[in-house]
């Protein structure tokens, strides 16, 4: 379970992330959505420990550091398999993972020679090679094709189910947000515009929330 209170991060006066309170229950899957620059990445980076907040605090009850996939993850020089193994927990069946993520044929290929979507797939597999009680994924499927996205969503779904994972992920695609999440967190300009169950998100409280979801609906 994640508890946030009074969290603030300020970037040289033009942007402030400000989250007074937010609780995520164990096993929840939160789609973090909102326009560009609304603070999605900033929130995930703070929670994963990549950057420090200016004030306030948060706790992740499992204790262990969460797994975190940045928006533009680094691909280590070396083969796809080398990359995936770097994230490896000893129990993971690496071959199955590579096959699930459609990387098995690419496993010997150098990471620097992959296409954009292949790279993203590799980084995703590398993430799931470890075992985490809590995962933060920043736009994990922004460059994968539709079929791949759906397969990877399935893989992620299985992973979360198996390990009872608390998941936070950001996306710009309504289909992804709705398919994967149990809760939706809409950020606007660094603040929470809406935080509700995915099933009930069609009636957001704030005006921004309503506008944002409406936009999604017509899309």
């Amino acid at each position, binding site marked *: 379970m994640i508890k946030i209170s009074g969290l603030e991060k300020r970037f040289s006066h033009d942007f402030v992330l400000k989250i007074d309170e937010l609780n995520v229950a164990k096993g929840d899957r939160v789609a973090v959505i909102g326009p560009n620059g609304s603070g999605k990445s900033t929130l995930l980076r703070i929670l994963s420990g990549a950057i420090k907040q200016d004030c306030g605090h948060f706790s992740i009850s499992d204790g262990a550091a969460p797994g*975190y996939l*940045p928006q533009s*993850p680094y691909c280590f020089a070396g083969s796809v398999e080398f990359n995936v193994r770097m994230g490896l927990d000893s129990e993971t069946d690496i071959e199955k993972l590579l096959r699930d993520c459609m990387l098995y044929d690419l496993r010997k290929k150098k990471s620097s020679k992959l296409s954009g979507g292949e790279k993203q797939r590799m980084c995703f597999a590398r*993430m799931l*090679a*470890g075992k985490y009680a809590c995962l933060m994924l920043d736009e994990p499927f922004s460059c994968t094709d539709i079929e791949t996205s759906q397969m990877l969503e399935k893989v992620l779904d299985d992973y979360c189910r198996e390990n009872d994972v608390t998941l936070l992920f950001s996306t710009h695609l309504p289909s992804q947000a709705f398919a994967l999440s149990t809760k939706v967190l809409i950020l606007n300009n660094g603040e929470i515009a809406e935080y509700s169950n995915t099933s009930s998100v069609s009636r957001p409280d704030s005006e921004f929330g309503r506008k944002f979801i409406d936009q999604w609906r017509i899309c």
Partner: protein
Amino acid sequence: MEYIKQAIHLFLSGDKELLQIVRTTLTMSVFSTVISSVIGLPIGVALGRAEFKGKGIILRITNTLMGLPPVAAGLIVFMLFRSVGPLGSFRIMFSVRIMVVAQVLLITPVIMGLAASASNVKAKSLTETAKGIGIRPTGQIYLLMRECAPQFVGIMLVGFGRSIAEVGAVSLVGGNIQFKTRVMTTAILLETNKGNFDTAIALTMLLLLISLVVNTLAYPYWRK
């Protein structure tokens, strides 16, 4: 051209003294480059990625030490290792070993500073990603070193170049003893002082040829 021919001729003549000089030169440069790299590369990378107070000061000191005059490095090592000095019991004055010590003192800051600078470019993104998949700081340093490996070859070549070219330190602690600690640079200096400019230049060409061979051997790893 003329000089290069002369250099090759010199080398092929198989003069025993020359062979010893070349061997000592290579032993000394290779050892000091390797030792300095083993020390300097990881520390440099650790410095390049870390964010801590005092990092700036350490980097500035490292950079300052890049400007340590070889003579001064030689003098410091001499003062430490001379028989009456605090480390005199090692009894390594006038040996290839002490030349390596002096060189390591000279080259390590160069390698450290360059490694810090090279790793700095990729450090932030790599650290964020590696940390996100649960890799510990030592593992992060390892990964960062792996990423910089091609540049490290270049950095080691800079170190090697500095080592093979250096004369002030090695002549002071090595004593430029014939058949023992004479290296190519001290020989060049000696010939220059004697006014044998032609021999000096032929030796220089030979030195550069050796350096070129080393660089050529290292090149594939450098630009992989």
